[in-house]
């Protein structure tokens, strides 16, 4: 049995399928539990998203505030590994902790946003934020990795939709990026405040997430 592809399911929901194709698709859905479930999920998703606002405009002064807080909260380079507790205590005042939290949130959100943005909307030149501490970078990297794991999982479930040749190409490209990330991570942990390095790392993660997103889309269409 040939299941309905993603395109057809979407067209069916959108009501843009030709009448003959609608009849065929609805006939198939009546007999195929898998496609019926997919169609129901798609309709449910559309129903949920229908009531959402079409755009969200952040307050005009948000970035100014974030930037000001980041600048005010920039910390000295923290040593890696097990630093003496007393030495850490000098930096960990409540004010600095709050600033660090804001820095982490802003940096993580910015970097994730940059990496996850789809192609048509992101501007040509986007500067990734610079990390002043290894901890800030590691926190952002955890967010990246969570996105990678999620996309990887989606891709795993769609493996059968891709040809073996395509899968080999994808895995090879991912290995190339992983190697670059490993080298960059090692260097960044030695020198976490290196702006060029953190931007190169962000670029490599963007490549990985973008590649996974594209392949997942390819498999699901």
């Amino acid at each position: 049995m040939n299941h309905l592809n993603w395109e057809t399911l979407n067209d069916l929901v959108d009501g843009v399928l030709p009448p003959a194709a609608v009849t065929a698709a609805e006939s198939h859905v009546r007999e195929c539990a898998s496609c019926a479930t997919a169609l129901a999920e798609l309709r449910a998703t559309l129903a949920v998203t229908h009531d959402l606002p079409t755009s969200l405009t952040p307050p005009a002064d948000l970035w100014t505030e974030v930037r000001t807080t980041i600048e005010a909260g920039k910390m000295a380079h923290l040593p890696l590994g097990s630093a003496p507790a007393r030495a850490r205590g000098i930096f960990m005042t409540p004010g600095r902790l709050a600033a660090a939290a804001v820095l982490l949130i802003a940096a993580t959100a910015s970097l994730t946003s940059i990496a996850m943005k789809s192609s048509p909307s992101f501007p040509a030149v986007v500067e990734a934020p610079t990390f002043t501490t290894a901890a800030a970078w590691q926190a952002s990297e955890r967010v990246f990795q969570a996105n990678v794991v999620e996309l990887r999982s989606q891709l795993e479930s769609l493996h059968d939709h891709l040809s073996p040749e395509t899968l080999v190409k994808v895995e090879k490209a991912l290995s190339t990026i992983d190697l670059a990330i490993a080298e960059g991570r090692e260097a960044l942990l030695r020198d976490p405040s290196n702006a060029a390095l953190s931007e190169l790392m962000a670029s490599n993660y963007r490549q990985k997430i973008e590649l996974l997103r594209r392949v997942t889309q390819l498999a699901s269409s």
Partner: protein
Amino acid sequence: MRSLRYRLALLLVAAAVSAVPVNAHAQQKVDVRRAVTRDVYVRLNGAFSSLKVTGWQKDSLVMTGVLPKESRFEPAMGSSSAPAPGVKFYIEGASNAPISGSLELFVPVGATVWAKSGSATIDVTGITGGLDLNIVGGSISVTGNPRELNIESMDGGVTVNGAPNWMRAKTATGDVTIRGSCTDLGITTVSGTVTIRDGSFERTRVESVTGNVTFGAGVSRAGTLLIDSHSGAIELQIGKASLDIDATTITGSITNNVTTRRPTPGRDGRGEELTLSLGIGDARATLRSFKGNIRLMR
């Protein structure tokens, strides 16, 4: 008698041999014509191996070509007689058969064309609207000045000759070559080479993991050029550009063949850094590489 049997056997073999290609290449003709709006949106998705798109000065769409007989070709063009604002084509190939089929599409120059296939050769000429082209393998070639150009390819090469206003190209291993100009250009590749030549570019960002990047074009006044590469070499052919250049490598080297200024050792003595200001420096180039070498040339 023996000779007759021999001839009969020969005839049977000849018939069998000639029958095989006929079945293997059984085809269906595609010939679709429709009045469309000048900015029609055309969506083409499915199994084809070759697509040629041409923009023309007519308010109509024509698609011709051949597809394997087993392919399912579904055009959706609306039922009214008014010019269609949107047209969709879906081609489902026969399962377990190699993708084939050659199509030629003529659309108004201002059309937006979205095309997606597995492995295909896509050639586009003369479109001033939008193009969104997506393949796994094969190649994509665009000639002309589309307003928006988005290309995604796994290992297919990308060649653009013209001046898109906005362009994004993403490949895994496919090479990207651009000759012309662009206001807003973004290219990402894992291991393909990137070559940009000829015209003037206003905002450009190139990201590569291992692919080499060569930029041999102008940067518009107050424009920006940003090239990031992990291990690919970066070559900037400056010409007579007026440019502020900021080059950094983490472990690679920087060669400056433009001025006498030598790069300085990078942080912790690793890698190199070089800052140059050429002319009145009204445009800015930032070149960053982890372990690829950077070379500046006239």
